[in-house]
């Protein structure tokens, strides 16, 4: 997999742990949410979880201080639940760690993802990154506040005031 962080190609420092594999305690490990109970309380290496699209933000709230990466799975690009989940984690729960979109997303959704608070997106190996970066430079104005903006609606809905 290739990784785009804030739109730029980046090396993935996380180890995606397969479902049956042991969870290593000395590297940044990305595990399925359902395996969280297996993680020892004294773990010091970074921990990330993959969550399904039906996950509600309040389910994740208790573990936000334990994880440094939340990877939201998009089973199909048409399934937009992840946008609401991402926005809620940032806006409502002030989650400050990495928020990554994984699964089936399109370059045309790249800007929406960042505007909803995602910091990274996983792209299939071999896929051309050009449309992904082009999508970020496409629009020069927006009608809504970005979730990570300090600005209020009034300042961001340009033309207003």
């Amino acid at each position: 997999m290739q990784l785009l962080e804030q739109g730029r190609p980046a090396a993935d420092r996380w180890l995606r742990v397969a479902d049956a594999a042991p969870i290593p305690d000395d590297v940044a490990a990305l595990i399925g949410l359902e395996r969280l109970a297996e993680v020892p309380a004294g773990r010091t290496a970074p921990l990330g979880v993959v969550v399904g699209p039906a996950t509600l933000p309040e389910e994740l709230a208790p573990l936000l201080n334990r994880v440094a990466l939340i990877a939201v799975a998009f089973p199909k690009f048409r399934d937009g639940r992840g946008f609401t989940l991402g926005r809620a984690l940032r806006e409502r729960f002030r989650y400050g760690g990495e928020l990554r979109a994984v699964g089936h997303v399109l370059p045309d959704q790249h800007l929406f993802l960042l505007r909803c608070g995602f910091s990274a997106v996983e792209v299939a190996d071999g896929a051309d990154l050009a449309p992904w970066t082009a999508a970020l430079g496409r629009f020069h104005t927006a009608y809504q506040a970005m979730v990570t903006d300090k600005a209020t609606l009034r300042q961001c809905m340009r033309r207003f005031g």
Partner: protein
Amino acid sequence: MDGLDRTAPQVTAGIYKYDAYDRQFLRDRVAEFRGQVDRRLAGALSEDEFKPLRLMNGLYLQLHAYMLRCAVPYGVLSSDQMRQFAVVARRFDRGYGHFTTRQNIQFNWIKLEEAADAIATLADADLHAIQTSGNCIRNVTTDEYAGAAFDESVDPRVYAEILRQWSTLHPEFSFLPRKFKIAITGAARDRAAIQLHDIGLAARRDASGAVSFEVWVGGGMGRTPILAYRIRERLPEAETIAYLEAILRVYNALGGRENIHKARIKILVRDVGQARFTELVEQEYARLPRERYRLEPEVVAAIQAHFAPPPFAVLPQADAALAAACDGDAEFAAWVGRNTHPHKVAGYISAVISLKPIGGIPGDCSAAQMDAIADLADRYAFGEVRVSHVQNLVLAHVRKDELYALWQALRPLGLATGNVGLLSDIIACPGLDYCALANARAIPVAQLIAERFADLHRQHDIGSVYINISGCINACAHHHVGHIGILGVDRKGEEYYQITLGGSATNDARIGDIVGPSFAYDQVTDAVETILRSYLAIRQAGELFIDTYRRTGLAPFKEALYATA
């Protein structure tokens, strides 16, 4: 626009004017779409991936060609924008367009390889096709007499424009479970069908002048017609965006994703129950950072300024010239009786241009007619045209003493049919003549019925009755809420039509009742005639069709329809 070689008026009706930001945004959007088309033609996007992207730019693949649905935001057009539709019709289509029940216009013969050029041509006149399809927030619709109607307390265009901006390429709500439609009214009589939308807003003004909204949610037609319920009785203006965000967030997180037929918000509301749904929305609303989503009064004022009333002349309410013209011309008098709506300013009136000539295609308009209407709008109506949700056009602000001249100009264009609200003012979707989803044709059924009752005197005797004909259960022609609703169904590859009676889309909204087994194509006109004969036989003094139906119910009509069967 230089305004030198046109009849363009010096002063125009208030209309939202694009600024540099809006225009840049449209150019960016055209470039994005052009790239998407190129990727599709080159094979970099599959049809499955391209489809939702083209749909969000209003491009469908229909039976014979691609169809482009252009937005007419809340149904308001400048005369120059109307002329630009004529340009698109001539350059990229076959010289005509079709106005829809969602106050938009559709072109039926677009080529994919020219679609980006067509959209760029629209953008030249600040027009676009953004979010006219797809699982996103669609064109916000409203009252075609907004800013003019005598019974209006709040101009809904101001809020429709604010919602247009808020919903345009909304990063969170562009991949919803299903399409999402919002309607707004600001008048005593609901002419926007707010109880049949995903969200309906009724604006009210209190004694102090403050605006608030009644919020309705969960209405819709289609396969499962459901009326909306009132989730908030009085939402302050400043909270509008925050509350709508809360509703959309609950819907996006919990709406059905498995089955396309169970994905609208109405199904979520039905499944969790109104009380629980209200609780979920109120919870979400309570924890929103409300300051961020506050709709400030100065924002509203800035948008309001775009919709400032045109410079009306000071005129008497009763107009001698109009009265004299009516006295001297019975046909004109009959047209005035049907095709006008009272205006809030003395000496003015709103005029309806019927797109339902007898035997014509409901909602269709040729490029030549579009150009002519634009010129008449400049001459008589401050350069502005409205599209109504019953597929007619409206000149909202016409001087009463110029109405006769306007009517005389409309006649040779085939645009002076005096049938608004009468039987031949039929609402019909494109149906199986064009639409890939349709089961049966709708347009020729409308034509057959209109021709059967072509005599306007007979139509006047029958009085106001709305006939809505949809070619499939998606209900684009709103058959569920027609006084007489006709739904095309497919029986072993042949066209059949199911009839419903007693629907209504306004304040007393109601889903119509199915009369019984469906009728074959060549039986539908007889069935409609039987229904209307029954009504004429049993009506009491002063009763319209809908009144009689409400008094008697289905029984006498059912009996008449199926007695011989």
